[in-house]
């Protein structure tokens, strides 16, 4: 097999793997805090890309990116405050299972609304985002394989996100409060932690990192109002694959899926590429629902 083509597949796998990893991290954050699966996670990625696209024409790129991340984080927080909190079930008592299904279904509805809103604002066309450095023709090379510098930005951003989240959850007061909250709502309350705020924060955080992933990959993958749904499915696959609630697992699983998916073109027609992730999803759910790195212990403790 041609080395260049292999390298291309690998690169593509890493790019998409990063997106999947970050989406999975977003799923985990919300899941750990609330027990619900936020279907709108994919839409946050979409918003990151589309907002950056629009803002970059009036603001310097770095500001545009930061703004779109912030705006999306606010959207996430508002979504939680207005809709999720409204049902109230999460903050009553010790976060019982009742209502989790309803809330998950609600996020399905919300993801559709966000998507339709994006359609209204940005239309149907695929939109582009400027490269952070250079342009679409710039390329670097390592050992004969050529790749766009944007890839370094993507890997860097993913690593940074993971690092920031790790530090946040282990060392900051809010992060520890969120972990305490997910482990035991009543216990957290007794320590003076307000569960409602933690839940809102988790949504804002998940939205922010989703948007960051969207913004940093959009130059290479382009962005579009409808990318959210399939991203959400893949992100969920990765989250479960890595062990739901386990973030180190999510990152690893993200890259694994990205690469497998990328190389699957060798065997399957491109039109069926999405089936690969679903087959993996079903296989994991049925054979090893705890995922590669998850265990019942870990998901109970809900470590970051």
């Amino acid at each position, binding site marked *: 097999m041609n080395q260049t083509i292999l390298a291309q597949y690998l690169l593509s796998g890493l790019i998409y793997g990063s997106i999947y990893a970050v989406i999975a991290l977003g799923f985990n954050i919300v899941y750990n805090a609330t027990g*619900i*699966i936020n279907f709108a996670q994919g839409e946050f990625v979409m918003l990151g890309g589309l907002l950056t696209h629009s803002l970059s024409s009036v603001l310097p790129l770095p500001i545009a990116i930061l703004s779109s991340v912030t705006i999306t984080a606010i959207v996430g927080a508002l979504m939680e405050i207005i*809709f999720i909190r*409204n*049902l109230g*079930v999460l903050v009553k008592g010790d976060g019982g299972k009742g*209502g*989790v*299904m*309803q*809330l*998950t*279904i*609600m996020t*399905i*509805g*919300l*993801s*559709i*609304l966000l*998507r*339709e*809103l994006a*359609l*209204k604002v940005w239309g149907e066309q695929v939109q582009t985002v400027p490269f952070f450095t250079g342009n679409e023709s710039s390329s670097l090379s390592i050992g004969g394989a050529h790749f766009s510098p944007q890839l370094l930005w993507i890997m860097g951003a993913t690593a940074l996100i993971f690092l920031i989240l790790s530090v946040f959850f282990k060392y900051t007061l809010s992060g520890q409060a969120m972990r305490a909250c997910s482990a035991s709502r009543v216990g957290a309350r007794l320590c003076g932690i307000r569960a409602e705020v933690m839940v809102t924060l988790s949504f804002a955080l998940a939205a922010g990192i989703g948007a960051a992933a969207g913004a940093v990959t959009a130059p290479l993958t382009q962005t579009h109002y409808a990318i959210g*749904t*399939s991203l959400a*499915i893949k992100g*969920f696959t990765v989250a*479960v694959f890595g062990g739901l609630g386990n973030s180190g697992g999510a990152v690893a699983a993200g890259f694994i899926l990205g690469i497998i998916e990328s190389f699957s073109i060798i065997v399957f*027609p491109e*039109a*069926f590429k*999405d*089936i690969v992730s*679903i*087959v993996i*999803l*079903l296989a994991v*759910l*049925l054979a090893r*629902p705890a995922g590669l790195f998850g265990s019942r212990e870990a998901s109970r403790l809900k470590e970051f």
Partner: protein
Amino acid sequence: MKKKDYTPLVAFMSVSILIPFLTNIFQVNFFLTQLTMSAYYALAALGLCLLLGYAGQISLGQAGFFAIGGYTSAILSKAGLDPRLAFVASVLLAALVAILIGMPVLKLKGHYLAMATLGFGVVIEKIVRGTPALGGADGISNVPSFTILKDLRITGGKADRLSNYAIAFVILSIVLILMINLLSSRSGRALRSLHGSEDAANAMGVNVANTKLGAFVIAAVLAAIAGSLMTHLNGSIGPGEANTMKSIRYLSIVAVGGLSNFTGTLAAGIILNFLSLRGVFGIYDDAVFGAILVLVMIFAPNGFGFAFPARFGKGAKK
């Protein structure tokens, strides 16, 4: 003993019989075709109502079974097979797939089950969209009409509007009868017990896995019947019918109609789809269904739905 309450059936049939007269009076007979299509979509939603509302299992893959029904009928009848046999084949295929998929997948619960069934739907869509032999993105057209008996046809012609409508609503009525009968029978009780307490069901000798599978297969079969007949009605089918959004629509319909309320689901399914087909929602079509999900979850999260109270026998159903 749960009294077999046929009031919903009577109500449904009365309204269905009334409609053609109304469309005639108001000179809007072309409504009948869209109502017929809506009826088939409502049939698929009815399957989900049984599965989710009574057996308590969520499925976001109904559109996949609808497509299996439609595509199988299309391919076989275009290949020359008598549409009646093609119909039987497509229903059997859907049942088979439902058994194969259901056996492993129904062991999952809650959002895992939702995701797995969602994944199934996506796989079906990708397959029909990406396979040239299945028509690719354009789907299959020029599907012959379905002759049930000598002059009774399901087809796209204007002249057959009324008979198409009648066929669809008779089928719905029959299915409604079967469902009402089922629910007040031993199997129906077993099915309903799943939603209440699987442990209790097990302890009473109910084979929970098989019962879940039975409900899943029934839902799939209803969706396949709807898909098959709709395909003959329209003369075509496309990959859009397997789309996730369609599955989510079925969920919205069941949600707003009342989780364990057949008449509510039928009414919601027919009305909402009719409005959608008439273009009333404009470009906000999908948004409407999304909004419905959100609103129902906010205002009526338990047992879903707020439409159609006791008047239609909802109380007796529970």
